[in-house]
C-alpha cells in the first residue's frame, strides 16, 4: 500500500466511524417537539417527546412530602396530564408557558423527567400586586421566625 493510500484509507475509516457515531447518537437521543394536540392525536408510548404548552389554570398540584408535581399542559385545543417528580423550577406556574421532556405512559399521562420553564424576556413592569405579595411574604416569614 502506498503512503497516500494509507492516508486515504485512514480518512475513510475515520469518516465512516464519525458518520456512524452521529447516526447512532441521533437515533438514540432524538426528542420530538409536540404540542398537546399533536401528542393526543397520535401518542406513541416509549418515544421521547418535548411537549410544550401552557400550564392549565387550576391544574397544578404540588405535594412537597412526596415531591409529586402534577399539572396539565394545554394549547387550547387539547390538554395533556403531566406527572413530574421534583420541585417546580423557577418561572414555572399556572398560566405560564412550559416545555416538559419525557415519555407518554400507557396509563394515559405524560411522565416528565425535565421541566424547562419558558423564560420570556418580557419582564413584567413592577406593579402593585407583586409588590404587595412580596411585602406580605416578608411579614409572614418574619413573624414565623420570631
Amino acid at each position, binding site marked *: 500500500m502506498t*503512503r497516500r493510500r*494509507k*492516508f486515504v484509507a*485512514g*480518512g475513510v475509516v*475515520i469518516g465512516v466511524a*464519525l458518520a456512524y*457515531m*452521529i447516526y*447512532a*447518537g*441521533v437515533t*438514540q*437521543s*432524538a*426528542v*420530538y*417537539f409536540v404540542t398537546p394536540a399533536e401528542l393526543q392525536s397520535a401518542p406513541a408510548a416509549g418515544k421521547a417527546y*418535548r411537549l410544550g404548552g401552557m400550564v392549565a389554570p387550576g391544574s397544578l398540584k*404540588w405535594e*412537597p*412530602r412526596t*415531591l409529586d408535581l402534577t399539572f396539565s399542559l394545554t394549547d387550547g385545543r387539547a390538554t395533556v396530564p403531566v406527572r413530574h417528580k*421534583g*420541585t*417546580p423550577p*423557577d*418561572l*414555572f*406556574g399556572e398560566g*405560564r408557558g412550559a416545555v416538559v*421532556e419525557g415519555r407518554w405512559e400507557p396509563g394515559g399521562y405524560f411522565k416528565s423527567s425535565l421541566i*424547562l*420553564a419558558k*423564560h*420570556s*424576556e418580557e*419582564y*413584567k*413592569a*413592577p406593579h402593585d400586586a*407583586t*409588590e404587595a405579595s*412580596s*411585602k406580605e*411574604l*416578608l411579614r*409572614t*416569614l*418574619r413573624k*414565623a*421566625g420570631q
Partner: protein
Amino acid sequence: MIPEIGYGGLIAALALAVFGSVAAGVGARTRRSELVQSAQHAAIGVFVLVTLCFALLVYAFLTFDFSVRYVALNTNLGTPFYYRITAVWGALEGSIILWTWMLALYTMIVMLRHRQTSGDLYPWALTTMLGIVAFFLLVMTIPAPPFERLSPIPLEGRGLNPLLQDTGMITHPIALYLGFTGFTVPFAFSLAALITGRVGDEWITTTRRWTIVAWYFLSLGLLIGGWWSYHVLGWGGYWAWDPVENAAFMPWLTGTAFLHSVMIQERRRMLKLWNISLIILTFGLTLFGTFLTRSGVIASVHAFTQGSIGAFFLGFLALVVLTALTLLAWRWDRLHAQGELDSVVSRESVFLLNNVFLVAAAFTVFFGTVFPLLSEAVRGVKVSVGAPFFNQVNIPLFLALIFLMGVGPLIAWRRASADNLKRNFLAPVVIGVVAALVLRLLGIASALAVLALALTVFVAASITVDFVRATRARRRLGEAVLPAMGGLLLRHNRRYGGFVIHLGILVITLGITGSHAWSVQTETTLKRGEAAELAGYRFRFDGLSATEESNHVKVSGFFTVSNGRAGAMTLQPARKFYPQEQAPIAYVDYRLGLKEDLYLVLGDFARDGSQATVKVQVNRLVSWIWIGGLVLTLGAALAILPERRAR
C-alpha cells in the same frame, strides 16, 4: 442630548470606518502610503468615537436616563452601582457596542504594532478589520440602536435580569468577546495573504501571538461561563450543551485546530490551504454564533432577542464566506504544499489527526445545534438532540484528542523510528497502564472514568519525561537544576507554554471526569428540625428567614450540615423575589472543596417556615475545572511572551 451625541458618534464612526477600509485598500493597491496613513488615522478616530459612545451609554446607565429605551429595559432605580455598569452589556444593543469597542481596540493595536514591520500584508489586514468594524457599526445604527429614545419617558425602568446580577457577568462577556473579536486579527491577515498572493507563513508568524491571545480569552470566557452557570443557575452543572454554549464552543474547537496546524506550515510548508480555511471557518463561526444567539432562530435559555438582526448577521456571514471562497479559488494554484507527509508515524500526521478530530467535534456540535432546524426543513417534524447526543459523540473524540496530546509534542517529525518511539513513550505508556490498574484496584467501576484518568496520567507523564530530559541536558552543560528549568521555560516559552496549557486541559479533564462519574444528588422535603443524609453528609432544616435587600426580598433556608469528620456548618440557600420578575430566582449556597463541593438549592417552602424542599448535591472534583483554568492562564501567559530562541 447625550443620546443624540451617542447616535451621531456612531454614525461618524461608521463613516470613518468605511473610509478607512477603502483608503487602506486603495492605498495598498496603488502603493500610495499617504492613503494608508490616513486609514490609520481613521482607525484611531473610530476607536476614539466608539470609546466615547460606549462611555456615553455607561453614563446613561449610571444616571438612570430612562428616556433611552435600552437603559429603561435593562436597569431600574434599585439596580446597585456596579450592576448598572455590567447591565450596559447585559442585553443585545450593549453587547454589540462592547464587541465593536473591542474590535476597534484590536484594530488600533494591530495598526500600532504592525504598521512598520508587516510590509504588504498589513494594509489589507487593516482594510478587512475596518470593514468588519463598519459592519458592527451598521448593526448599531439600524437593527440594534443602543441610543434609541423612548416616549413617553417611564419613571422607572424594567431592571436587569436578576440572573445577570452576578460578578461572573462582569468578566464572562468581556473574556468571551475578547476571544471572539481576537480571531478577527488572524482572519484579517489570512485574507490579506490571499489578496496579495503571499500565502507563505508570513501571515502566520505575524499573527501567532494574536491567535494565542484570542484562544486564551475564548477559553477563559467559556470557563467563566461554566462557573456562572454552576453557581448561579442552580441546576448543579456547568455545561448543558445549550445552543449558546455551543455557539462559543465551535470556534474554540476550530481555533484550537488552527493553533496546532499552523505549526505544521511553519515547519514543513504544508497545509497552506487548510490553515487559511480553518481561520476563515473559525471567524465565520464567531459570526454564526452571534447570529444563533441573537436572532432567536433556536430556542435557548439565554437567546435574547428576535428581529432583523438575524438577517444582518446571516447576510454578513454569507458575504464573508463568499469573499473568502472567491479569494481561495483565485489563489488556488499558490496554495500547494511544498513538503509532503513522509510517514503515518510522524508528528505531522499526529497533528493532522488532532485537526481531523477537532474539526469533527466542531462539526458534530454544529450538527446537533442546528438539527432542529434541519429536521424541520427536511422532514417537517421538529426534533432536537440533547446532551446525550453531544456526550455520546464527543467523548470518544475528546479521549482520542487527549491521547494525541501526549504523543504529538514528543514524536519525531517526518518519520518516527522504533527507537524514537521507545525512548519517548515507553515510560509514559507503562505509567499510564499502571495508573489504569491502580484505579481499577481502588474500585473505580466506570470504565470510561478509568480510561479518561489513565490517559490523563499518560499525557502528564509524557510531558514530565520531556521536561526532565531537557533539564538534564542543560545540567550537563553545567547549570543548576532551578536555573536550568527556568531557562527552559523562558527560552522555549512557546513549547513549554503549550505544555503548561496541556497540563491545564488535563486538570480540567480530571474535574469533568470526576463530576460526571461520581456526583450524587437528592431532593427532599424536610420539616423544621428534620434531617436527611447524602454521601456521608447529614443535613438538618432549621427554619427560614426573610430579609429585604436593596432591590429584592430574600428568603433563606437554614441548613445545618455535618459529616463525621468536620464540625457542623450552616448553609443558607435562598430564593430571591424581585418585584419585576414573574417568579423567584434560586440562590445557591455551596462549600467548595478539592475533593467535592456541597451544593444546596432551596426549592419550594411553606410560608410559615415549617417545611422546605431542598435539593442537595455532592459534586465531585468540580473545583479542578477552575484550577485547570488558572493553569491554562499561566501557560498562555508563558506562550505569549516574545520568543527568545536559543541561537
